[in-house]
């Protein structure tokens, strides 16, 4: 009896008892099933955008509301975070001064149905407009981003769209593409000129103005200019740059490959090299030219026609078109011309490759019964899928810089127009209408 009352004995007995009975009264951690969750139907977050505090001069009563409308439209365009109707807000509609403190009203916003809350302030500088804003995750009540963006005061719309793109980046890591632009070729004035428009098809402006025929616009990597092809008076084609004044406009590499017709140029993602299609004596090959040194390297050297270079996002490989197997097909190769691989095997006529910014797909056009459809193929050529199919022709795919959308030209309404479609084949949008033929879209990079 004395032994049983000893405190050490009692403690050991208690431990043994607990150890022995534990499995019986609770599931051990290792025995608990893993709750496996797969995606449901919800594809877009909901965001509450407050009216930003307006401290800019001169005073304009509608500035904050206009900005909120621009941000909302831009968020709708990207489709990752959809704006909530302010009438549903359980929190204040107007932004308070930004601070580094936490929020106490997250449950209100969460209950409003908002996954995200955006607050901000508008300020003015010398000829500029500045917006400071913060993005909140309402469920965890954590601030995901706080940024300041400054633009020319005349570009308030671009400023609002950039804010929207940054809100998307705070939730996904990749900005939206609402503030980017699309270059294209149009004969709306009777001449084939290069034009630039916003991604919603508005604010179209001319980038070139001459009588010569132009084609194949391709953006400089920092979006300050556009490289394009134009016929010269001698009848040959050459490469030119049209600029927004940051770089020198004019003919590119005037002494390059004399006697060759330069059909097309595409800058590498790092901007260091340009892939060029040049033709002489009935054959066409792909070259690269170093932007600063002018050093030329011939990448293809076969009797076949080889055109349509498109860089991989890391700049290490190029997709291109070759008819070396008897019909035009898509191939890839290293940037020095080695390791050539054919990646399209379906269809007898596949052209216009466009490598996606994430590197996972190459869009191309394929001829089916005399017209063209747009397909996707992975860079190894293992999987090919239709993206855009129609009785009329869909051609010249070009990826948005965020990889979420593709621009292309289509004759589905008679004349050729520029359309957009999501990468998953949804949300077809027509950008140009009733203004001649609009061709060869080239989606610009993120603004820097």
């Amino acid at each position, binding site marked *: 009896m004395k032994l049983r009352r000893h405190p050490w004995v009692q403690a050991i007995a208690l431990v043994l008892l607990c150890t022995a009975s534990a499995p019986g009264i*609770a599931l051990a*951690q*290792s*025995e*608990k*099933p*893993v*709750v*496996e*969750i*797969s*995606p*449901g139907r*919800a*594809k*877009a*977050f909901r965001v509450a955008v407050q009216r930003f505090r307006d401290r800019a001069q001169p005073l304009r009563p509608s500035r904050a509301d206009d900005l909120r409308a621009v941000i909302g439209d831009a968020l709708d365009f990207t489709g*990752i975070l959809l704006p909530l109707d302010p009438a549903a807000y359980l929190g204040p509609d107007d932004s308070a001064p930004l601070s580094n403190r936490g929020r106490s009203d997250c449950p209100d916003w969460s209950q409003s149905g908002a*996954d995200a809350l955006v607050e901000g302030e508008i300020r003015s500088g010398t000829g500029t407009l500045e917006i400071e804003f913060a993005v909140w*995750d309402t*469920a*965890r009540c954590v601030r995901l981003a706080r940024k300041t963006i400054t633009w020319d005061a005349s570009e308030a719309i671009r400023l609002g769209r950039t804010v929207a793109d940054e809100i998307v980046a705070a*939730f*996904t*890591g990749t900005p939206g593409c609402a503030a980017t632009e699309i270059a294209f070729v149009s004969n709306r004035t009777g001449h084939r000129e290069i034009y630039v428009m916003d991604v919603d098809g508005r604010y179209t402006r001319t980038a070139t103005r001459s009588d010569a025929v132009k*084609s194949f616009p391709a953006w400089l990597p920092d979006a300050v200019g556009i490289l394009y092809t134009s016929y010269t008076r001698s009848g040959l084609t050459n490469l030119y740059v049209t600029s927004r004044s940051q770089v020198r406009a004019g003919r590119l590499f005037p002494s390059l490959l004399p006697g060759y017709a330069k059909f*097309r140029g595409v800058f590498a993602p790092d901007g260091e090299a340009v892939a060029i299609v040049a*033709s002489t004596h009935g054959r*066409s090959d792909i070259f690269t030219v170093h932007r600063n040194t002018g050093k030329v390297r011939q990448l293809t050297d076969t009797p076949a*026609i080889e*055109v349509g270079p498109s860089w991989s996002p890391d700049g290490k490989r190029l997709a291109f078109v070759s*008819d070396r197997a*008897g*019909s*035009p097909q898509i191939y890839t190769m290293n940037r020095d011309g080695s390791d050539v691989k054919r990646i399209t095997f379906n269809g007898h*006529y596949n*052209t216009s490759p466009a490598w996606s910014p994430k590197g*996972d*797909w190459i869009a191309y056009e394929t001829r*089916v019964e005399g017209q*063209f*459809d747009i*397909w996707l193929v*992975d860079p*190894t050529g*293992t*999987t090919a*899928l*239709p993206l*855009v*199919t129609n*009785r009329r022709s869909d051609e010249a795919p070009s990826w948005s810089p965020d990889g*979420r959308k593709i621009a292309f030209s289509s004759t589905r309404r008679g004349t050729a127009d520029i359309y957009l*479609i*999501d*990468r*998953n*084949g949804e949300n077809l949008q027509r950008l140009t209408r009733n203004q001649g033929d609009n*061709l*060869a879209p080239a989606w610009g990079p993120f603004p820097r």
Partner: protein
Amino acid sequence: MSSSTQASWLDEQEALQRRNWRRGVLLSVVLHGCVAAGLLYAPEPEPMRLPEVISVKMVSLPGAPPAPPKAAPRKAVPKPTPAPAPTPARTPAPAPKKVLLPKRPQKVSKKRKPKPKPLEYDDALAALRDELGEPDPPVASEEEVSDADLLATAEPAVSPGAGVEVDPALAKWLLDTRRHLRQVWVVPPDFLEQGLVTGLIVTLSASGDVLGQPEITRTSGNPYFDENTVRALVRASPLPPPPESGDWPFQFSADEGP
């Protein structure tokens, strides 16, 4: 397609097709002639003679024979269709042939108690997929997901193949929790087709409240996706009351299948 180079391709291509067509017609005429000559001059075959008696020996079997496994129909390589373009799926491994797996059971009546599914079925299915080099089956849309479907993956995380059955109360909680989280979890297209999987441990109260911040035990490699799973769990709180309070393992997978 505006350059003269590409236009010349078109011309060459059409000339080549015309040449091929002429050769094909000529070859076809020659082959038909050969076949007709063979039929005219071939000797008549002798009729097959049958044996006068056919004997059959009956043997007894130890038991009812198992039903022969149904041959899985093979799916051809997908062709382009004029229907709306499908979602592009990333399947890096070559899959020249697809095998249609047996359909999952139809919607189970809610009055019936959901019968937990033993592990062997899914293990066998997984082994079959591995053998055929097939990826996991696609996830059905919300409307198509039945209770049985949801339960199919609600097995305990014990050694595979052990055949352990899930306690009905636990199975119901797993079902309710999965359904609840699938409604709350927002997965933008950015996160799909990359095989992102995040594992977490979540502390739940007896009433299903998420206590504190879920802890990530297995990162997907994409911090925004990891953050998104934590957000979903916090936003979904309270979950259905669990069989017992404490830590519970969760796994979020963005893979919708091919």
